[in-house]
């Protein structure tokens, strides 16, 4: 391997890693606030890419159907639980948030498609369609078992991923997509070509990480999220609703995943099931950060990207084997570094 190749692989790895940074930070955010290890996060990213690709060609994206279906289901679950609690006054709110709002988004996008809107509008449309999905899934799948063990939530999360892969095939079909690059800009630094897309990816990762930091440190909602992450019961006593904090976390996380989906679509061909690998690799990065530290997660995700890039140069068939095998030493290192704590006892 010459230094030139190493440099190209390095740049490539950093760009891939930056994508993972976005997904990984969302994963950590959701884990700390809700204790759910949200495996389907990569699916959200892949669905965003597929949505954007459909919008680019003027087709109706499958996301609209998915969104409406999930909204109906979530409304059903929410209204049933409200009726059971005899909390009839909340029903109009539930209908608004779980049914009317997602339906309005779906309708707006559907009406806009024939007008052939410009790229920035299409990006906004794709993100708007994808944002409600994770919160709706949270309502349907995780809220009824919010107090279960991390392990139970993890099993459910893995099952949910497989459901989403099936839904992805149903709503998006088996074809892979690759969208137009967002920028045709090119530059050369020290003999290495940098595409505008690469720069965009890295910049986006940095910008969103900083925005998240500002959000957590300088807004009340952000602080309430941190409080929930540290101690759910304590936060509840301070008047913070963990369920609402969870919804905010899912929305924010989906935004990150959505952006990463948009950024990766011009670089890699995305299929309905590409999300699993993106999500899991981001997750390896998140574990390097101990599922808690955001800077650690960012460093970890970039490390995974670089590792993957070099591994695929050495042996492209085994790059996934190498990346996932890496997780084991990392987990051991993390569990050694973790403070001694009384283990969870479940009956």
């Amino acid at each position, binding site marked *: 391997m010459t230094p030139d190749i190493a440099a190209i692989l390095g740049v490539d790895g950093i760009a891939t890693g930056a994508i993972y940074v976005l997904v990984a930070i969302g994963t950590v955010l959701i884990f700390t606030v809700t204790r759910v290890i949200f495996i389907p996060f990569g699916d959200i990213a892949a669905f965003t890419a597929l949505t954007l690709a459909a919008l680019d060609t003027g087709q109706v994206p499958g996301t609209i159907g998915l969104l409406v279906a999930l909204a109906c289901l979530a409304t059903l679950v929410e209204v049933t639980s409200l009726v059971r609690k005899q909390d009839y006054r909340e029903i109009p709110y539930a209908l608004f948030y779980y049914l009317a709002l997602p339906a309005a988004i779906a309708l707006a996008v559907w009406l806009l498609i024939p007008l052939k809107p410009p790229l920035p509008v299409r990006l906004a449309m794709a993100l708007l369609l994808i944002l409600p999905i994770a919160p709706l899934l949270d309502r349907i799948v995780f809220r009824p078992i919010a107090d279960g063990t991390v392990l139970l939530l993890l099993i459910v999360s893995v099952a949910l991923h497989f459901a989403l892969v099936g839904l992805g095939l149903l709503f998006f079909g088996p074809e892979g997509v690759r969208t137009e690059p967002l920028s045709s800009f090119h530059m050369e630094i020290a003999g290495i070509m940098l595409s505008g897309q690469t720069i965009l990816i890295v910049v986006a990762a940095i910008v969103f990480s900083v925005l998240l930091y500002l959000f957590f440190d300088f807004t009340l909602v952000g602080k309430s999220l941190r409080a929930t992450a540290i101690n759910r019961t304590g936060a509840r006593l301070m008047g913070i609703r963990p369920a609402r904090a969870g919804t905010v976390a899912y929305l924010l996380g989906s935004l990150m995943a959505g952006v990463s989906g948009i950024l990766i679509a011009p670089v890699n061909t995305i299929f309905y099931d590409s999300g699993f690998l993106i999500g899991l690799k981001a997750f390896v990065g998140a574990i390097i950060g101990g599922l808690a530290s955001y800077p650690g997660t960012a460093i970890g995700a970039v490390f995974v990207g670089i590792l993957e890039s070099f591994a695929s140069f050495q042996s492209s068939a085994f790059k996934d084997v190498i990346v*996932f095998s890496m997780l084991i030493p990392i987990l051991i290192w993390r569990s050694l570094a973790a403070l001694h704590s009384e283990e969870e006892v479940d009956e």
Partner: protein
Amino acid sequence: MRRSQIHLIGLIAVVCLGIAPYVLGSFSITLLNYIGIYALVAIGLALLTGVGGIVSFGQAAFVGVSAYASAWLSTTGGYSPWLGLILGAVLTCSIAAFLGFVTLRLKGHFLSLSTIAWGLAIAYMFGNIEGLGNYNGIASIPPISFGSIELIRSTQIYYLIWAIVIIAVLLAYNLLNSRVGRAMRTLRGGDTLVESLGINAFWIKLASFIIAALLAAVSGWLYAHMSRFVSPTPFEAGMGIEYLMMAMIGGAGSIIGGIVGAAIVTVLKNSIQDYLPLIAKGASGQLEIVAFSALFILFLQRARQGIVPYVAKFLPEPAHEPPPPAEPLPRRTQPPPGQTILKVDSAVRRFGGLIAVNEVSFEVRSGEILGLIGPNGAGKSTMFNLITGALKLSGGGVAFEGASVADKRQYQIARAGIARTFQHVKLRPRMTLIDNVLLGTYPRTKTGFWRGALRLNKDEEASAYQEALAQLKRVGLGDKPYELAGNLPLGSQRVLEIARALAADPVLLVLDEPAAGLRRQEKLQLAELLRSLRSDHLTILLVEHDMDFVMGLVDRIVVMDFGSKLCEGEPKEIRSDARVQEAYLGAVA
């Protein structure tokens, strides 16, 4: 339900299985074959996940390792599938031993995540190794044969599959009801509890992990030689969660549940494949996995207990037949009275900048009850954890019967003869009183995995049973040994913990705030029990902050305050000590 009735039901089930090929069509038999093959993996998971609490998403990879190993050996090498079974089992168990050795120290969800990681890594390997046919897999694998009889038709291999399943069920049941099985059932109570009983928790986890892998290996071997073709798909992550689903739907921790779960999932999958096209034309393949995952999520939300435990609630209690009288377990020789058995020498423990225990020294002499008292936050519990090995010393030393315990693991200290109880009671609430006390006899008995699974342990088991019953009677709980521990009131639970500790035949009994939360009458009974134990020459170290309880009971007292030893002496001296009064009352009274 008596044991003979259970045997009768088992016999009827075996007969039904035996005549099935003469009654059912070949399609049903093929389905039953798949159920049996999946059930083997699910039984392994019932032991690993249901009983041991170790959630593995990676079993499908183990099935694949064995299936590929046997397929490769019998096609490219032309060797007998029986050799393939040996290769598959050895290879799978070696990989499991390695992975288990590396990962089983991980806690809770970290451990499960690691199973996703290696499950994926192994599954990707199958598709990328040229010698294994890449993504095309290996075709025309020879069938299993007995002499000249080749098991080609589904009705032929059917008998082999179900014979193996029945053997696996019997072995698993025996194992669960043996010494090691009880240790496995305790894993969910946490490492601190397991190790305090003198059980090497890591070893039990590793063995459970390898057993589950071995069952997966046998399943993979049967799969390869039944379908005569292997490709990477059935060993991918999706199948891993399906196995988990079978074990959990059947009932986590229930062996029969493994078969029930495998049957339900397989039949359900089949009917979904049959009926979905009627509902949604052309989209059945996609909907299948969606419907399946949705059902699983619904199950996890609503009925986590699983089917077999739910049904078992409506069946009559199994009758308990106590084992015959047996030789008592050997006892250790207690040290002569008055000898120093525990010596704490300037013990120090720091948590970051906080010094929880600061240069504390004291001795425990055999035959006495020593009280370690002090106000809240004095460092009593930390001292307790240093003695039992739950925490490591930052400085100084602790010696038990002349040997340092500083670098010993918890279970080694327990085996040396220190038995403990817990401030927050740690019992197995779903195990009977007698089973809980039997756990205490673990270090005094020897039956391993194989002897337990093959029931070669009857004599030892009977001895251990007698010992446990004797200890239950000694503490006054001998009248209902088959009650579930979780049904007892708190006072009795504390006493049950003492019985469990006594069953280990300890030299030193260390009690962590045994009077906490007890009513006055219960406290008096507890004090009476401890006095009777002292008159049996047992040495007791009591960590307590209930002064009344301690004063009338103990021979000597060590007082701690703010991490340091304040003073030491007989109860009378302590009561009149000005420093103690200040520590407890805030000023000289």
